[in-house]
């Protein structure tokens, strides 16, 4: 990983077309300004991770896998507790 030290107001370039400027530094937070061509998608890393994980999760839902999941994972032992937790968090407001 390339490590670069910059102060607020300074910037750096990635390739010829992407510029990232440090706008503000405050405590643990950094505000960045990004200039890039429209074709370059910019998003938070956790947003991309969540999108990928959502797609994987949805694709992994199959009836037979659900039952093997229940067998494989030691959920049974915490069953009673889970029931208690969900008993106070009903799935429909009507039940509350």
């Amino acid at each position: 990983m390339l490590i670069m030290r910059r102060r607020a107001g300074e910037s750096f370039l990635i390739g010829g077309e992407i510029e990232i400027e440090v706008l503000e530094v405050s405590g643990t937070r950094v505000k960045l300004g990004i200039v890039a061509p429209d074709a370059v998608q910019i998003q938070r890393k956790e947003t991309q991770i969540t999108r990928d994980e959502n797609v994987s999760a949805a694709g992994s839902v199959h009836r037979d896998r659900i039952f093997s999941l229940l067998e494989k994972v030691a959920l049974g032992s915490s069953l009673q507790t889970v029931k208690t937790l969900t008993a106070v968090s009903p799935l429909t407001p009507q039940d509350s």
Partner: protein
Amino acid sequence: MTRIQTKCFGEMSYSQDAVFEFPNGLLGFEDERLFVFLSQPATHPLMFMQSLTQASVCFVLLPILAVDPNYQLSLPPEDLEALRLPAGRQPRIGTEVLCAAMVCTGGENRPHPTVNLLSPIVLNLRERIGIQAIQTLSGYSHRHSLLALNPQPELASCS
């Protein structure tokens, strides 16, 4: 009662007040705004988050405290607002909100089931609104192994 086609349980009926709205959709499923949450004894404690518009879109969830009894949910002001919850404090899991983690049962290069603790589904039960609340600074894993889920003595004493 209205009937829908579900991915895992065939045709089912539901009442309108069991429908939750996700005003922002879900990442990767931006067009899916309406979901019903299904559970049944045979698959307890799993919950099924079934899209109302597409039968093929269904997520399997686990109550987050069943995975990690010490899970700390931290909602930023914009998430509290989206859920129509009071600002300035965190909601209580189990009473004010239902908080659940999405399960990935496995897949290509992923032999073991995992849950996403980074991006839990949070539901305001009273308002019937849901969001996926990314826990940016939490350090929680998006692929937390479910095989590590062992019975916890302190859990048992809570019940």
